[in-house]
């Protein structure tokens, strides 16, 4: 499907183009926003008591920016939408109650702008070599000039720039603090969408614009991505094991999960890319549910530190059960969405003749069991701290949307037609070349 802005036919005008890949992403982003917003109302009322109008306006701006990145078929348009969504994101993160939110937003701004500017340099090189900015047109013209150093540099700049945006290890340093101090609603939304969209843009450029033959044969991209993915999986999970602030714990776990997605892509097989996209979809579901559960805990207790939730599972059983169930999905227990994507990842690793990857996937899943278990243990098996106010169960306006999110994790673990089918169709489109 293709829409031409102002009726200028591409490659002269800006084109919006929807195919199997970005249709799934657009569905994911709008779906996450749809299911999170009912939950957000109560949570935002507590955390941002004043000036909610601009706050929601910024949120809608970020949402439209992310949708724009997903749908556009024009390379420069991606940059513009990337900045629209990023700028509103910086402002949203700065809304956090803790003053450290300001610092986190500032650091994210610096790193994010460097990333976006690197991406812009890459696009500039591509334009210099081909004279076009339309992605489909770029894909047609690049093979003629692919041996030039400029095109190699363009790919490198684009991958590094987007690597910053998608928090690929070791470019993830902005992420933990930005997630930890943002308002809970924003954390849940960003964790489920922002890094996913950056990963989509990377896939789009690696596969559609540059073609896999160039990206993976002329450049050692597969080896680089695989190394960074594994390093991210191990390091992210490792740090998460010792983190006491639960929002930071989940943020480091996000770094690890981005590793799984990139690992799938770095196998460069249709099955591997499908597993990566599937994990992208499922991880958005789990993290939306987990951060929504944390937001609910914060709403009742006023803290998300491990020491202060001790014993609270007995007082807020519905909230903590939701957290534990979403955690099962993160670990990858059968019947959950997390299981399907890890299953496909393992199969893809076997097919690609790299069985040793399974060991790493299993090992990092074990670490995930450990860090989710710490929360469960603290919530149910530790005594409540002396003198702490005993919370009641959270209000229904938070619990109902939260449980809908948790239920989605199980629904997509059992009925996999939409996510697995969508991911496989997307992978076929990407590997097959022309969009």
């Amino acid at each position, binding site marked *: 499907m293709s829409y031409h802005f102002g009726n200028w036919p591409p490659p002269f005008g800006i084109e919006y183009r929807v195919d199997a890949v970005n249709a799934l992403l657009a569905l994911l982003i709008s779906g996450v926003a749809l299911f999170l917003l009912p939950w957000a109302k109560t949570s935002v009322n507590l955390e941002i008591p004043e000036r909610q109008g601009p706050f929601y306006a910024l949120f809608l701006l970020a949402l439209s920016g992310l949708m724009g990145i997903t749908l556009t078929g024009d390379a*420069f348009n991606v*940059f*513009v939408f990337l*900045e629209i969504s990023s*700028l509103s994101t*910086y*402002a949203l993160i*700065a809304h956090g109650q803790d*003053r*450290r939110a*300001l*610092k986190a*937003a*500032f*650091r994210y*701004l*610096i790193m994010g*702008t*460097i990333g976006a*500017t690197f991406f*812009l*340099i890459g696009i*500039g090189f591509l*334009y*210099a070599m081909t004279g076009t900015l339309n992605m489909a047109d770029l894909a047609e013209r690049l093979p003629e000039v692919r041996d030039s150093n400029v095109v190699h540099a363009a790919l490198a700049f684009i991958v590094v720039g987007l690597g910053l945006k998608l928090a690929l290890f070791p470019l993830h*340093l*902005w992420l*933990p*603090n930005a997630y*930890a101090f943002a308002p809970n609603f924003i954390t849940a939304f960003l964790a489920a969408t922002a890094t996913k969209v950056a990963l989509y843009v990377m896939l789009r450029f690696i596969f559609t614009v540059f073609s896999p033959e160039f990206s993976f044969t002329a450049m050692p991209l597969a080896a680089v991505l695989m190394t960074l993915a594994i390093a991210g999986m191990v390091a992210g999970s490792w740090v998460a094991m010792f983190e*006491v*602030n639960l929002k*930071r714990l989940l943020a480091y776990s996000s770094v690890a999960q981005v590793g799984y997605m990139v690992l799938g892509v770095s196998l460069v097989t249709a099955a591997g890319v499908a597993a990566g996209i599937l994990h992208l979809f499922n991880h958005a579901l789990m993290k939306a549910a987990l951060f929504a559960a944390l937001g609910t805990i914060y709403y009742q207790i006023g803290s998300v530190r491990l020491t202060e939730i001790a014993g609270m599972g007995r007082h807020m059983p519905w909230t903590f059960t939701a957290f534990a169930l979403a955690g099962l999905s993160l670990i990858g227990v059968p019947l959950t969405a997390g299981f399907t994507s890890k299953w496909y990842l393992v199969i893809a690793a076997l097919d690609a003749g790299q069985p040793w990857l399974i060991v790493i996937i299993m090992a990092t899943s074990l670490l995930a069991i450990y860090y989710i278990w710490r929360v469960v243990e603290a919530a149910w098996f530790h005594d409540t701290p002396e003198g702490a106010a005993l919370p009641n169960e959270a209000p229904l306006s938070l619990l109902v949307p939260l449980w809908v999110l948790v239920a989605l994790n199980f629904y997509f673990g059992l009925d996999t037609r939409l996510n697995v089918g969508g991911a496989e169709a997307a992978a076929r489109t990407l590997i097959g070349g022309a969009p």
Partner: protein
Amino acid sequence: MELLGHYNYYVVVILMMIGLYTIIARGNLVKKVIGLNIFQTSVFILFISLGKISGASTPVWRDGVEVYSNPLPHVLILTAIVVGVATTSVALALAVRIHEAYGSLDDDELRGSHGPDDSIT
């Protein structure tokens, strides 16, 4: 001749490195923003240089001119400049809020003023 012909691009690379170095090395947040601006400007010059055709005129239609420069990079950079201005204003607004909250703009003083949550960057 070849070396001088690429004069613009040397300027771009030098400015880019000055900008990146400023972002990394300077502790003051406002100086980091300035570095960011220099970094972005270098990319603008890169794009504008791409559009220049030697001996060509400005891309405005008039008699007696055969060769025009490529206007598209100019338009792109106009957009990018707007984005850059927006980024700078958000960054400065954040810097003002940080100064209100912490009473300092220096990276070293901001760091380590909290507990363990604050350790990384």
